[in-house]
């Protein structure tokens, strides 16, 4: 636990005019899961590509399992696995052939590659489809095979680049279970996702990145606490009424957000704060037609960060 399994400092990478990474630093303790959360183009895939040795940074330094990803890339490759949107399996091979090929190329030995392939097909529920060509697989089966392919040589560090993008809920939950199993068996996981729910469900630490930089880091609970413990959703039925409520709340020190005829207000003071909110509105805006109280999601965190706002 003393030295992080993944450590990066000041990573920069530009593609032509576009600065994909602008000084990103991170550290992932061994055996934990870091969720890298950000929208398209925020630098998630670039980060993973650099850490997984398929791309060189313009500046900055990174180590995986204590090995430098640029100068010791060949040794890094022996301890990492990569699965994700841009690291594919071969559609014209069967699931079993894919795993055996990648196993041999991962230098686990011919016999071991066969045994591991069978084992992984079994544990990822692909036994029935093992000898069918991957081009006939569903999206969920392909992703599971993709993750299995990253595990042939039992990597100690696993990179998952948007592993569930485009999957139906059932496939997504099945993949989540696999990731949890891996993490509990001691594998360090760096996972990128656009889904806040996914980071919440899987990650020990979440790093929110935006425009190639870390915007915030913390445990899912910490982030939620920092950005409020409850969210009040008030619906006024009409946009003008919501605008009036927005003005009233803003002048009273809240930081409301308006979506159409609805207003959202975050509060760190718990659901009791609803009384205060309604008192502010009394007389200055029509009564809301509905009021809902919910727990904040990482969406709330993310939206307020990328809009530069802060919770009340």
């Amino acid at each position, binding site marked *: 636990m003393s030295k992080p399994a993944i450590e990066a400092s000041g990573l920069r990478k530009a593609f032509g005019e576009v600065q994909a990474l602008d000084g990103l630093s991170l550290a992932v303790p061994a055996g934990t899961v870091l969720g890298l959360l950000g929208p398209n183009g925020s630098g998630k895939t670039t980060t993973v*590509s650099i850490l*997984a*040795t*398929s*791309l*060189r940074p313009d500046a900055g330094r990174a180590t995986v*399992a*204590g*090995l430098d990803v640029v100068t010791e890339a*060949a*040794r890094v*490759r*022996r*301890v*990492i696995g*990569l699965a994700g*949107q*841009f*690291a*594919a*399996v*071969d*559609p*014209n*091979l069967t699931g079993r*052939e894919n795993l055996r*090929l*990648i196993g*041999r*190329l*991962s*230098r686990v030995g011919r016999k071991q590659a066969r045994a591991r392939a069978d084992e992984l097909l079994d544990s990822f529920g692909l036994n029935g489809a093992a000898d069918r*060509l991957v081009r006939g697989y569903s999206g969920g089966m392909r992703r599971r095979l993709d993750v299995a*392919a990253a595990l042939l*040589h*039992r990597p*100690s560090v696993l990179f998952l680049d948007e592993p569930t993008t485009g999957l139906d809920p059932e496939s997504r939950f099945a993949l989540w279970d696999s990731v949890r199993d891996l993490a509990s068996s001691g594998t360090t996981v760096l996972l990128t996702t656009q889904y806040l729910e996914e980071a919440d469900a899987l990650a020990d630490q979440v790093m929110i990145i935006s425009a190639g930089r870390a915007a915030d880091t913390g445990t899912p609970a910490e982030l939620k606490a920092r950005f409020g413990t409850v969210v009040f959703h008030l619906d006024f039925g009409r946009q003008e009424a919501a605008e009036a409520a927005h003005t009233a709340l803003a002048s009273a020190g809240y930081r409301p957000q308006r979506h159409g005829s609805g207003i959202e207000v975050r509060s760190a003071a718990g659901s009791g704060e609803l009384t205060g909110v309604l008192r502010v509105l009394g007389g200055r805006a029509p009564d809301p037609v509905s009021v809902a109280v919910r727990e904040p999601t990482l969406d709330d965190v993310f939206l307020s960060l990328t809009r530069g706002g802060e919770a009340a």
Partner: protein
Amino acid sequence: MSTIAMEPRQAAGGGVTGGPVTGGRVAAAASRIADALSDTADVAWRNLLTQLRTPQALVFAIIQPVIFVLLFRYAFGGAIHVPGTNYVDFLMPGIFAQTVAFGAVGTAVGLSGDVRTGILVRFRTLPMARIAVLAGRTAADLARNLLVIAVMIGVGFAAGFRSPHGAGALLAALGLVIAFGYAISWGFASLGLRVSDPEAAQAAAVPVLFLLVFTSAAFVPSTAMPGWLQAFGTHQPVDALVNAERALILGGPAAHDVLISLAWSGGMLVVFALLAARTYARMGR
């Protein structure tokens, strides 16, 4: 991390002089080469399986030269007069050269497909030998060339080709053809790595090959071309190959032409392999 601890450090025993260190280095180099060959075989096997399972490309690789045999043997052949020989015996060496030259399009298309699907990204993060991605691709394309050439021999014989100087001469000529095909396929490997769209790779590759094949003496004697075209057409590798094949198959002093063709193929192989390896290494920059 036990996986790391197991790896022997190369610098170990730095103070020891002479035999053991050198021996260790040789053994390490030998084992690296063995690993690279084994990786190449694995990648080649994967590419061959892929080709067999997408047989359209293979079928077109065969149909195209067959059409050229029919076209030149029966449609144009009557109008082409080559002194001292049957036109079909003159034609087939050209067909063999054309077949493997256009086979190199498959190398470009295959690699650009690997770029597009993302399988190259996975390969780049595996502890495999990097050169195996390229060597495995060109080896599979060499195997495909062997198959297509075998079919073309059959088609040639059906169209009246007789290889007047015997089987040995024909086999020697085909050896040159295969060597040329292997070298040029490395040339198109770089192209395939640079475009992530198989159609674009094909569109870029075909005109170059057309230029080389149709300015050479593949189908008509160069003497029938205007001087400026001859100047280009007779100083390029397809023409050198066709001349060497004809010298062997039709008889005559062959050593000079054979050496020129081998020099072209050897030179192309070295330059193109270095270029392709460099292109692949730079993909992560």
